[in-house]
Every structure is written in structure tokens, then in C-alpha cells.
């Protein structure tokens, strides 16, 4: 009897160890990836699609789209979403899988094109590229190969709660340049106790929020430099001039000094700026159009109470600039995948942007898609951006996508900004400038060789 029990226990132990033993799943699977088990079976004659998704907020919609496509055409589409901020790591691990590597992945900025360019199929003249209605979101590598094309575009700037703006006594479209922005912000901050709300939401410097300043707000500085020297910015410039850093400082100082949260507390974050904005405690929230679906609409804010203003820093002629339109969401096809898989992937992409039902679902999740047959978006911020464009205001294109070694570059900037936030002296601002300007040159050299 004892022997029997001992043998049974040994068997259970062996089964347990073997079952959870050697599975190589280094990637983070999406929480609802029902398609994964089906997709790892042998590929059918029609090829298979494997999309390594960049946008965690769109995972649900993409799983539904994959199921829809499978129903219509019988082709397997596997969608796996990398956790926020880990796309590069996940892609590195997944690309090693040979025949099971992603057939469709995101190459969104210059640093990614540098790393993954050789894995990208040249998309010039392909069916999917022909569906585009603009070239603005194409990403080329150094040799001019079309590595990836945008599948959605977004805009960012400073989101304004116009209901609060009017409560403070200003007209909805009062802010047209830095002088007016400064006036409103400082006035509201001074009267915060009486009004019940403050000017800017918290400018946290933790990893979930620092990119709003180290990546987006700084775009203002890069943009004006590119206006001065457009030919220099056709590829990644080797170094910057830093001419507009003072204007950036104007806006940055305004933001941290007229905020709900004192500057010294920003290093560790945790102040939930989104919630401060939604609950009406702050009037200005530097963010992007994705916030509409991501928090503002579900949080109960109404489109008529919201607008977005450009980044104003006191540059001459800034009344004629609009919002920052661009994207980091460009999809590429794996050049190492089999011909069948490449064709299947291309067909899937074309279906996604031409099929009315599919594109409606995709647009609802991603925001606007730059394709001829795609449904137009209902995102209010994109509509505002279109208004600016229609009024002839220049687009602040995403020069920030050129940041070399983006993670290392931004990490140094975060450190310098932390020191400045704790003690806003000129000497500390010099460090911030060094990190932004000299740091660019250093990372550019490191990325090259």
C-alpha cells in the first residue's frame, strides 16, 4: 500500500514538473489571446498572420478583428500585445522564433528603423501602400527603403477643459499664444482656492508620464529648429542647435509653477494627472488624442467641454502653428517570413483598411487611419486638429521620432529634469539643456556604431 502511494506521488510530481517545464514563452501574451493555440498549428496553404501589437489599449478590438477575419476568410490571425513600454524587448524575443516570428510588427521611429530595418519588407508600390491617402506617416531607412507605413495617426498638445476656462472668466478661444496662456495659467493658479480648480495637472516624471515632456513637449523645440533648417531634418540630424530651449523652458516653467502639485514632488510620480483633469481639479492637461477613448470619454467628460491648444513657448509667429500631428504606430511586414505569410499579411492589412465594418472598429480603437477607404474618426481632438489645418496653421510634425537611442536619451533628460524640479536654478537648467542638446549628439554617435 505504501509503495503504491509512493509511486503515485512520484508520478504526479514528474507530470507536474514536465508540464510546467520547458515551454519557451518569453513574450508576454495578451490576457485574452484565444487565437494563440489555434495559430501555432501547422500553417495552411493560405499562409498565416502574426501581429505583434504595440498599442495595449487596442488589444480587445484587435482580437475581435482577428476573429472576424478568420470567419470571413479562414486565415489565422494571431494578435499578441506587448506590455506597455516593453515592445522592443518583446519583439527581440519573438523575432528569434524563425517560422513563428511576427509577420506584422511596429517600426515607429528612427531608432526602431535602425534596429529593425533589415527585417522590413520594402513596401513601395505594394497594395497596402497604395491604399494610403498621405505620405506623411511613411518611415524610410537610410537607404530610402520604405520600412513601415502609418496605420493610425494622432495629435498631441495641451488639452483644455473649456468649461473651467469659461468659469474662470475667459472666452473659449482666448488663448492664442504664450502671452495669453501665461496670463490665464498664472491667474487661475493665483485664484485656485477661490475657483476650486488649478491651472496645470501634475507633471509627473515617472515612467508612465515622463514621455509627455521628454518626447512630446520637447517636440516644440525640435519643430522650430526644423523650420529654420528643413534640409537638415530630412534624415536624423547628427546634432541640434538648441536655439529654442529658452522657449521650451518658458512653457515648462509655466507648467510646473502653476500646477496642482508642487514641483519638488514630481520625481516619483503617482499623482494621477488624468484623474486630476477628469475630476475637474485642473484645467490644462498636456496629452494626446488617444486620451479621448483612453480615459476622458469613459470618465464622463463631454466633447464640447474639451479643446486642445498647441504648445506655445513665446516663439515669434507661433499663432500660426497648429497641433502636433504624427504617429509612432507604423506597421511593417517581416521580410524573412515566407512569401505565403507575407501575402496573407498584406491581404489582412488591405482588408482592415477597406472593409467598412473592420475599419470602423479599427478607427474606433486607434483613432484616424490615413487610408482612402477607411471610415473617418469621431475623435474630437482630431477634428480640432483638422480645424487648425483648415485655418492654415502649420502642423508641428513629430520631429521627436528622430530621437536617437530614445530610451537612453530620455532617461538622461528625466534625471536632469528631476534635479531641476527639485531646485529650479539656472545652473540646473544648463544640465537639462546639456542632456537634450549634447545628449542628442552623444546618442547619435552611439547608435551609429
Amino acid at each position, binding site marked *: 500500500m505504501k509503495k503504491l502511494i509512493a509511486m503515485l506521488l512520484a508520478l504526479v510530481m514528474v507530470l507536474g514538473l514536465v508540464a510546467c517545464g520547458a515551454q519557451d514563452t518569453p513574450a508576454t501574451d495578451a490576457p485574452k489571446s484565444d487565437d494563440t493555440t489555434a495559430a501555432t498549428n501547422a500553417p495552411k496553404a493560405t499562409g498565416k498572420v502574426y501581429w505583434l501589437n504595440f498599442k495595449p489599449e487596442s488589444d480587445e478590438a484587435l482580437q475581435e478583428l482577428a476573429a472576424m477575419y478568420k470567419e470571413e476568410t479562414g486565415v489565422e490571425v494571431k494578435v499578441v500585445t506587448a506590455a506597455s513600454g516593453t515592445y522592443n524587448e518583446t519583439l527581440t524575443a519573438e523575432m*528569434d522564433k524563425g517560422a513563428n516570428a511576427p509577420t506584422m510588427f511596429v517600426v515607429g521611429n528612427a531608432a526602431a528603423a535602425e534596429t529593425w530595418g*533589415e527585417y522590413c519588407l520594402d513596401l513601395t508600390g505594394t497594395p497596402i501602400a497604395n491604399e494610403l491617402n498621405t505620405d506623411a506617416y511613411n518611415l524610410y531607412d537610410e537607404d530610402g527603403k520604405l520600412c513601415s507605413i502609418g496605420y493610425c495617426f494622432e495629435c498631441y498638445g495641451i488639452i483644455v477643459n473649456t468649461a473651467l476656462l469659461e468659469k474662470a472668466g475667459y472666452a473659449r478661444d482666448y488663448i492664442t499664444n504664450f502671452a495669453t496662456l501665461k496670463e490665464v495659467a498664472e491667474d487661475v493658479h493665483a485664484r485656485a482656492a477661490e475657483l476650486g480648480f488649478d491651472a496645470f495637472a501634475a507633471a509627473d516624471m515617472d515612467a508612465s508620464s515622463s514621455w509627455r515632456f521628454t518626447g512630446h513637449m520637447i517636440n516644440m523645440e525640435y519643430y522650430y529648429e526644423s523650420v529654420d533648417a528643413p534640409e537638415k531634418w530630412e534624415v536624423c540630424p547628427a546634432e541640434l542647435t538648441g536655439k529654442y530651449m529658452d522657449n521650451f523652458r518658458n512653457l515648462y516653467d509655466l507648467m510646473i509653477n502653476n500646477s496642482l502639485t508642487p514641483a519638488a514632488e514630481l520625481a516619483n510620480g503617482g499623482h494621477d494627472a488624468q484623474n486630476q483633469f477628469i475630476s475637474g481639479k485642473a484645467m490644462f492637461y498636456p496629452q494626446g488624442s488617444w486620451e479621448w477613448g483612453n480615459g476622458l470619454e469613459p470618465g464622463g467628460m463631454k466633447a464640447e467641454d474639451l479643446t486642445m491648444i498647441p504648445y506655445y513657448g513665446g516663439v515669434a509667429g507661433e499663432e500660426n502653428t497648429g497641433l502636433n500631428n504624427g504617429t509612432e504606430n507604423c506597421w511593417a511586414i517581416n521580410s524573412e517570413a515566407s512569401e505565403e505569410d507575407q501575402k496573407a499579411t498584406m491581404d489582412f492589412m488591405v482588408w482592415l483598411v477597406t472593409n467598412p465594418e473592420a475599419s470602423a472598429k479599427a478607427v474606433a480603437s486607434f483613432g484616424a487611419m490615413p487610408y482612402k477607404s477607411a471610415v473617418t474618426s469621431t475623435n474630437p481632438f482630431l477634428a480640432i486638429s483638422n480645424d487648425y489645418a483648415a485655418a492654415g496653421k502649420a502642423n508641428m510634425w513629430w520631429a521627436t521620432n528622430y530621437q536617437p537611442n530614445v530610451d*537612453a536619451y530620455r532617461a538622461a533628460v528625466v534625471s536632469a529634469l528631476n534635479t531641476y524640479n527639485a531646485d529650479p536654478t539656472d545652473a540646473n537648467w544648463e544640465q537639462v539643456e546639456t542632456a537634450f542638446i549634447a545628449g542628442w549628439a552623444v546618442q547619435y554617435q552611439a547608435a551609429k556604431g
Partner: protein
Amino acid sequence: MISRSVQKTFPLFLLPTVAAFCIGFVWPFLHGLFLSFTKFKTTSKWTWVGIENYLKAFADESFRYSFGYTAMYAIVSVVLINVLAFTIAYFLTQKIRGANLFRTVFFMPNLIGGIVLGYIWSMIFDGFLGAYGKSILTDTTWGFWGLVILMCWQQVGYMMIIYIAGLQAVPEDMLEAARIDGATSTQTLFKVTIPNVMPSITICTFLSITNAFKLFDQNLALTGGLPYIINPDGTSVHTTEMLALNIYNTFYGQSSNSRGVAQAKAVLFFILVAALGLMQLKFTRDKEVQQ
């Protein structure tokens, strides 16, 4: 004498563990060793470059800085953790009420994972330092001592358990003999107890040294290498970055050009920790008293 049934079935028991060990450790280790001599972006596409990666690793200033910083941290934490753990273990092996409760409570911090620990403690430290206008992310000194405090809090319980076992194994007759001969408690501690507890000291020192050098999760979550000193030419020194984080940043932070160098650094790291561990083991093993 091994019984028949064990002789027949021992491969069955060993196989899963050995298989997991080979797949999870031996193969990646050998593969990594090979890749350290190549330049690669993904592990399946590589080009041979010989020892160039090792030369670059030695020339890298941040690697040398991380090594110095990690060594300093290791010395401080090994001493503190072991002294504290031994002291607490010594008191908890006396006949005091609630000794079991204390042991449980002291061990519990060890159960919390590294990333969560780092994150929570960074908020605790900032809550405290914020009152003085500082932050753990802007002050290197606090970054260092914060990490030491965190690791002591986590590791003392674990080492304490090992020391308690060691202390309970000290032969009673030796202690009696010492008492009869008129030894004071200090003399008993240093001349009788500690030499008999030497095996536990060997284990605990080995664990604390290797843990200190391999530390990653808590380092990443507590400070992530911040604050950086920004040099006028744009390069930066990551002041609280330890070796493992340095290797990680070299691999992922540098636009995939330095992945071979990161792999070379990882091999050097392994050699360093293995050498230190083995040296320490030999040193303390020689001091063990034969029972």
C-alpha cells in the same frame, strides 16, 4: 546503503530537474558564451567579431563605475545583513516568549518580490525625504543607503533562519563545559559558538555576496540608476546603477549595436561572481570546526 527500489527509480526522479536545468541554464549559458564573441541584433543572426566585445566592455567607463559601486554595496550589505541576522538569531535562540512569532515576522519580508519591494520602498523613502525637500531619485547617497536598508529588511529574515538552525546545532556539552570553566558569555560566543556555527556563516556569506552582486529587480525599481550626472559633453554617469542593470541597459538601451558587448559583460560578470563565491567558500570552509 541505497535500497533497491531507489536504485531503480532514481533516474525517473532526477530527469525532470536535470532536463529543466539543461534547458533553462546550461544551453542558454553556452549559447550566450558563444554570442559574446559575435555582433548580433537577434540571437539567430550573428557575425563573428572575436574578442572585440571584451575589449569594448573593459573600455566602457560605465561598466567600471558599476563594478566599483556594486563592490561597495556588496561589502556594506554583506557585513550588515550577516551581523544583524546573527544577532537576531542569537537572541531568538534564547528562551524568550514569542520566539516563534518573532521568527515568522522577521522572515516575512523575504516573501515579497523584488520589483514590488523596490517600488513601495521608493514611495516610503520619498514620503520621508520629501519633508526635507529631497528625493531618493535626486540624491545618490540616499539611493545607496536606501538600497542597503531595503535589502537588509528583505534578507535579514532569510539569513536569520539559517543562523538559527546553525545555532541550534551547537553541541550542548561544549557550552556546558565552557560554563563550568567559567567563560563569560562574550567568550563563549566568540570562542565556542561562532566556530561551531561556521558552516552557517559560510552559507550565509556566500548567499549574501552573490545576491549583492546579482541584484537587479530592487535596483531597477528603487532608483533605476538615477540620478545621472550629466557631463558637459552630453555623456552621463548613472550613479546608482549596479552591474546587472548596466548589462541590461547596454543590451536594450543602445539601439541594438551593443548587444554583443552586453553579452561579453555578462560573461565577465559570471566569471567575477563565480570567482568571488568560490574564494569566499574556500576561506570560510577552512575555518570550520570538525564535529
